[in-house]
Every structure is written in structure tokens, then in C-alpha cells.
């Protein structure tokens, strides 16, 4: 599973970071520092929760 962020949509709500700060790091201004990452095993539920929690719908999952 891969999770990616559309940086053009990210507005720094940090709701993803609230779900899992390691999976969804922020830059020092509070915007997603993710780009695209492989989701470690056991964190799939967190990844899905974060995607569903983003008000800007900036996150996508590739299974």
C-alpha cells in the first residue's frame, strides 16, 4: 500500500499527522512533508483513517 499527498491541495490542517505522526510527517510550517510513501505493515488502518480525515481530500491510497 502506498499513500501520497497532493501538495497543491494540502492546506496544513494536520489531521493526517494527528492520526499517525510518523506516517504523516509535517514540515516546519505545518504542511505535509510526505510526497509518497510505502505504508509499513500494521499501519494500513491509520493510512485509511488519515485519507478519510483530510478536509482537502489531499491524500490518496494505492493498494
Amino acid at each position, binding site marked *: 500500500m502506498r499513500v501520497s499527498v497532493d501538495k497543491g491541495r494540502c*492546506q496544513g490542517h*494536520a489531521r493526517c499527522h494527528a492520526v499517525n505522526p510518523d506516517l504523516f510527517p509535517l514540515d516546519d510550517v*505545518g*504542511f505535509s512533508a510526505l510526497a509518497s510513501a510505502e505504508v509499513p505493515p500494521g499501519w494500513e488502518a491509520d493510512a485509511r483513517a488519515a485519507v*478519510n*480525515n483530510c*478536509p*482537502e481530500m489531499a491524500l490518496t491510497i494505492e493498494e
Partner: protein
Amino acid sequence: MSTADETKKAVRAQAARVGDVPNECWINVRDEATDCWETAYEVVANTRGTIRKAADVLLCPPTLTVLMIVIVLPRRLRLSDTRKRDTAPSPLTSTGLNMMMNRIDYVGRHDGRRAGLRVTDVPVRHGFMHSEDTALRREGYPAWERLLHETPTFESDYRSRHTDNRIWYLLRYEDVYSVLRNTSLFSSVGFTHPDYESEFLMIPSEMDPPEHTKYRTLLNPILSPTRIAEMEPAIRARCRRLVEEIRDRGECDVINDFALRFPTVVFMDMLGVPTDDLDTFIGWVHQSQHTSHADDPDGRIRDAADRAIHEFMLGIAEQRRSDPREDIVSRLVQCTLDGRPLDRRELGGMLYLLFLAGLDTVASMLGWSLMHFAQNASDRSRICTQPELISSAVEEVLRYYSIVVISRHVTASGKAQGCPMAKGDRVIVPLATANRDPEAFPDAGRFVLDRSPNRHIAFGVGPHRCVGSHLARLELRVALEEWHRVIPEYRIPESADLGLRVGMFVTSLQSVPLRWAGGPVLGR
């Protein structure tokens, strides 16, 4: 002088340009001598078909003459009286004409006068303004839910000194989301609200990208999650002190004794000003944000408070210029934009925004939170026994008790969100209805403490997303933690009037009286 046919043709072409197909062609005629954008009169379609078509009306000279006479009569004969709605329509008398949901637009010319056509079925709520609506003021959220259910999109023909344009209310989550993300069509520039006129510009909330972006880039680092997290111990200490001052009283008015004081004291610490002036600050907030139109019809009280806030903040800025510290004002004073420092207007506008944006809002949310937990014992007991749920509870309070109503103006005519908008029209999007939209949230009308996911937009979406959201969340979480640590059981006295105030931009509670088993304990 065009014929009725030519006018109708022109009008259909106009409608086709915005993508609509008119099914009834009515002529709306207005006296140009007054040069007023308000409708002098309207002739509308009756779905029961008891009004004859315009063609019939126009081609009948006596009727036309009477219609013209009727139409040039002064505004006081305007049929905006809702009790006329059910009377049988007759084109021969002003009282016989039926005002209905489908209205008329201005698009052409006929006999030297403006003539028009309505091509939409967006309903109209005559004279509706959320800050003046009695149902909203009396009931709050259930009234918003009813509006969402009955007319998720509607037009209001409310007019004021400051606006002659139409107002579109868009209540659905999907529409609110679209509006707030489309900053080029829905602009924040200028007077964004029909009734609100102020000489003080909030920077950058009253700007659009790309200008908005330049200032926003300066604010983001100052209120970033990392910066805010660093402030947690100091914020918690402030909160603890406030709660402990109240604890032994056994009663308080949450709004005045705690909810407004807490974020204000935090803000004063952020500014590096002594908190002895707390009551002055709170006074300014009240005068700037809480004066009603009745108390302050010219806005003089509000303007005086706004001026005081500006002068105070600019005074601090001057001090920090010569004596910089590690605080937000110092950082802003040292910022550069396009290679130059911020000027007085920019600093004033940004500091004014920072001053006002985080006080009333956080205070209202705290009021709503404690009101909710006072009235919902099982939710309260859950957060007392499981304080790790408080973060999630804060999100659900933000969703369920959203307080902000956002306003924009339309920059280009055309169909948007199902409405035939004209350039200059106002759009009002209440976050409360978006956040209670059953199409966006399962069980939207219920408060679910550990709701997940919770994609609420209480802090907005798009480039104007509340820059203080991280601070607000921290303050709410800390306040609920500290309060319940010390006062876990409390209630609202019977027949307490919470004084709901539906403001133009923010809905607030004026008072939340609470009682608990407290008072001085012997031996402590």
C-alpha cells in the same frame, strides 16, 4: 424600441449563455428613472398555471398599460409581503400578483425599460439574513438543520445599506467545500458580508491569492503545529490557574469567568504584554464583536474599539522593533515581503486579525463544549475516565457546534453550485450546516464522541483555512483536560438563558452558567 418577441429572444439567448433553458417567459419591468437595482415589481410563474403567460399579458394593451402603471409605482407597493403568497393572482391589481419561489432576473430591454427573465428554480427566502433570523436565534442548530433540509440552496433578497446584490445561501457540505476552494470565483476582497462595513481590513483574510498567499506565508510558521506545541506547558499553567480560581466558588458563568479569559490571557502572553490589562482587552472584544445593530447602528462603538485595538497592537509593534523578543509581534516586525519590511497598514491588519480571530471563537467553542458536557452526562463521564478521548471529543464539538459563517462575493457571472450568479452577488456559506450534512457524515445529527473519520470543516478549507487552528485545538484540549481534572461534575441551572447570538460571522453564547459541588472545603 424592441418588440416583445425581440426581448424574449434576447432573453433566451442570455439564458442559453449561462446554460439554462427557460420554461416560462415572464417580463419583469422596472422604472429606470430611479436607477435602482431593487426590483420595483415582479411577476412570477405560478406552478398551478393560474397566471397567464407573458405573451398574453404583453399583447393585451389594456393589461400592459395597467402593468406599466403598477410597475412604476413607488417601492412601498412592492409585493414582498409573504401573506400575499396564496392569493389568486391577477395581473390587473398590485395585490393580485403572487410572489413565489421562482423569481425574475434582469436581462433585456422592452419599451425603453429593463426587462428580464428568471431561469432557475432556486428557492427564495424573502428577507432572510441569518444574523437576524428569529428561529436561528431562538433555537440555534436545529434551525440550521431545518434550513439545510428544506432549502439546502436558496436565494435571499435581503438588502441593506451596503448591498444591492443578491445573496446566495449554500448550506451543503459539497457546495461549501467548492466555494471555499474556489478563490478565483468566490472572492474575499472588499465587503464580504452584506451588513459589514469597516475601515479596518483584516489581513490577509480579506484578500485573495496570490496576494493572500504572500501574507499567509508569513503567518504559517508563527502558528505552526511545532510552535504551538512548544507553548503547551505555559498554556496549561495559565488554564490551571484560571480553573483553580473558579473551583471553590461552586458556580460560575463559563463565558465571562473562564472561556473568554483563557484564550485572551494566552494571547496576551504571546504578545508579551502584562495581563493586568485583561479586562480592557476583553472590553475591546465585546465592543468590536458583540454590539448589536440596535445598540450601535452607525458602528461607532465598534469602530472605536477596532481603532483602540489597532493603536495598541501597532504600539507593541513599535516597542518590539527597537527591543525584539521571541514573540509573534517581534517575528512579524522582522518579516520581509518582496524584500521590504511590512508597512503600518499591513502590520496593523495582520495584528488586528490575530487579535480578534482567536478570542471570541475559542470562547464560544469552550462555552458550547461545557454546555454539551453539562447536558450529556455519559459523554462527560467518558472524557473524565478516559481523558485520551478528549482530542476526538474536541473534533466532534468543532463539527457539531460549528460557529462560523463565511461570506464571499462572486467575481464573474454564470451558473455556479446550481445558481445563476451575477458578478457582485454575495455568497454565504454556514459551516454549521456543512458539518451536519447527512450526505457528508453518517448520523450527522448526533454527537458521537469518538467519531472517526471526522472530516469536518469547522476551520474552513482552502487557502483561508484558519491559521490559528492548531492553537485553537490545543486550547480546547487543554481547557477540557484541566477543567474536568478539577471539576468533573457540573450542571446548568434550570431555566438558564444561554443568550445565543447569531453574529454575522460567528455565533456565540453570551452566558453559560454552571453549578457544581464546590465551595471552600475545610481543612484544605
